């Protein structure tokens, strides 16, 4: 590990911020989802970096669980997006605001 840990954490911070901006500015539900994946991956990088710093594998095990949850989340989320598209011919998150009341 010749690269200092703060550099990895900085890369993770930049990717997380990029994901946040993507969630805020994009209206296609698919791209919002991809941005969420980007944020999850940024956090995974933090987990792996701290696991290496501590010399344990607990952080890597947590990354495994994040992967599992992310996989389930993507499957369910994309199924919902397909349902919305079939019912309303759009995947624009601003058009699907019925819960707003």
């Amino acid at each position, binding site marked *: 590990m010749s690269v200092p840990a*703060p550099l990895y954490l900085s890369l993770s911070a930049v990717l997380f911020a990029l994901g946040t901006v993507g969630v805020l500015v994009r209206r296609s539900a698919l791209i919002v989802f991809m941005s969420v994946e980007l944020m999850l991956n940024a956090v995974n990088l933090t987990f792996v970096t701290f696991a290496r710093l501590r010399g344990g594998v607990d952080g890597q095990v947590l990354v495994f669980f994040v*992967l*599992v949850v992310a996989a389930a989340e993507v499957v369910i989320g994309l199924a919902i997006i397909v349902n919305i598209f079939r019912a309303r011919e759009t995947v624009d998150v601003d058009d699907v605001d019925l819960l707003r009341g």
Partner: protein
Amino acid sequence: MEAVLFAITAVLGVAGGVGVIAARQPVHSALGLLLALLSLAVDYLLLDAQFVAVLQVIIYAGAIVVLFVFIIMLLRATGDAPRARTAVPPRAAAALGAVLAAALLAAALTVRTEPGGVGADYGTVEQVGRALFGPYALPFEAASIVLVVGMIGAVALGKRAQAIAVAPARAAPGVRAQDAPASRLAAGGAGEPEG
């Protein structure tokens, strides 16, 4: 050598991230995501996490991005429709992202811990597997339940999608798509033969 590799993957990863949020075509966003994910896999290798790196390539780059591309193809999705008003103005979002990045960077740069040495078997499938099936056995079982629930949910949602797709064609004009299955049920209840 490691520093050069890290610099390359950092540039590629950030480029991929910018590609995800800036591309006009959803397929280009998916490719940007793929680039970012593969760069992160290389970073995991640099951090001695072989198992996580392999999982990253197989699950994220292999399965999740393929699922995204498949859905993009299925929906013939295009980019955002031009619109005067957005929920969050892009400039405000960019400013917010910059503030968030600055805060996270400030926190990241305070880390002073020096990494200790690790054995040759650090991060291998064996070591992570022993942790998974030892102290983390219960969460591991819970994760398998999450996956099963996800599978069942996807199948159930897929079936409902077929019902919704059939309904609007039979519904009278003006009937909203959400109401259509109910009206079809009512028609069936009145004794009219289907089809």
